């Protein structure tokens, strides 16, 4: 892309210094946590909130908020990478590993679709959300997850671009085929690995 114009003296946000090995190609480091979303913030009361594993499974499983919190927790500290090119290191979360939720689940499905309040969906390979790679988190930085950032609970899949870490998640449906979710339908990559710069369909 031809770029004739450089804005004299413009550098953008002070690029924080950080270990370049932790920053995928094309990304810039930030200390902010921008609030980005495809729709209005839903407000689901914890009395109504449930989380469901269903789809191509032997039997659907549902947890109420109380039941969910009673599951074993983990406290991952991870780097996150947004497709708008900002990366944020060492973010601290607390939640339930997707492995825990899929324990004893029999499935022929190789993919999952995350379904969320407000209708947002995103698709992932089952192998991208298992073996310690994904959580349903309800705390960020030691505090209950803010509704603006996806509270009461969101999906966290830090090794993929952050649009895959669906806010306001209410369930994972196992699917046999990869079924493009919201942004994937508009041309974003089905997998979304920031280290391979998988931003768009067709690479």
């Amino acid at each position, binding site marked *: 892309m031809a*770029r004739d114009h450089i804005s*004299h*003296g413009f550098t953008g946000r002070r690029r924080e210094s950080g270990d370049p090995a932790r920053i995928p190609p094309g990304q810039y480091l930030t200390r902010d946590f921008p609030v980005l979303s495809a729709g209005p913030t839903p407000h689901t009361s914890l009395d109504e909130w449930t989380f469901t594993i269903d789809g191509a499974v032997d039997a659907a499983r549902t947890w109420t908020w109380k039941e969910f919190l009673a599951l074993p927790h983990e406290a991952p500290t991870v780097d996150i990478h947004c497709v708008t090119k900002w990366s944020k290191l060492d973010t601290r979360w607390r939640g339930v590993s997707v492995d825990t939720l899929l324990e004893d689940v029999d499935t022929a499905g190789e993919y999952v679709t995350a379904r969320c309040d407000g209708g947002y969906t995103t698709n992932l390979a089952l192998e991208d959300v298992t073996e310690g790679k994904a959580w349903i988190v309800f705390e960020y930085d030691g505090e209950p997850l803010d509704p603006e950032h996806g509270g009461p609970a969101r999906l966290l899949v830090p090794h993929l671009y952050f649009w895959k870490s669906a806010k306001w998640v209410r369930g994972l449906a196992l699917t046999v085929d990869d079924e493009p979710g919201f942004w994937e339908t508009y041309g974003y990559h089905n997998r979304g690995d920031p280290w391979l710069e998988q931003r768009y369909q067709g690479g």
Partner: protein
Amino acid sequence: MVERVAETARAKSVLLDLPGWPGHRAGQHVDIRLTAEDGYQAQRSYSIASGPEDDRLALTIERLDDGEVSPYLTDVLEPGDELELRGPIGGYFVWEASLPGPLQLIAGGSGIVPLRAMLRHWVAADRPVAARVLYSARSLDEAIYRDELLGLAAYDELDVRIALTRAWPAGWTGHRGRIDRALVDAAAWPPQERPRIYVCGPTAFVEAAAELLVESGHRPDSIKTERFGPTGG
């Protein structure tokens, strides 16, 4: 960029010479794109602060301490520097002097910028309709164009009310606190006058003001709104 003028402690107007500029309508905006040497880009929209009849294009920028674009425009850009911009943009939130009906302008914070362009056009067109301004700012010091607005209020055809939400001078007889139903009823054109209404500012302000207007009997289709992000751009 030709010149920079301080409006308040945090807001500065940037005056631009744009060869080939086709002119604009009051209320329109421009999109500015900044490019760093390494290719990093940032883009923001800014309402045009000057009237269509003014000599130079003016943009008024409120500096956000943690902003990426605003501090560049208020502090770094120098006379002679070039800006990449796209515009004029917008056909909905515009006012032209040929439009009938009394005019009602309501602004929160930096929402006053496009409304000031409308007022400059109103003056240049010899004040064709009666107009009222309701401007909500945190304090007098943070009220952009304060002196200009109060100067314009000397015209019989214009009424300017300022509401201060956080701090006000001793003896302030204007409205204290956020705009409310009582202020709208007292200071805005009543619904029977069928005013043409423009509301601009942060989203929460715009929605609160629009709701008050509808509650007090104004028709929703007489109200045009423009929401700014928390960056107030």
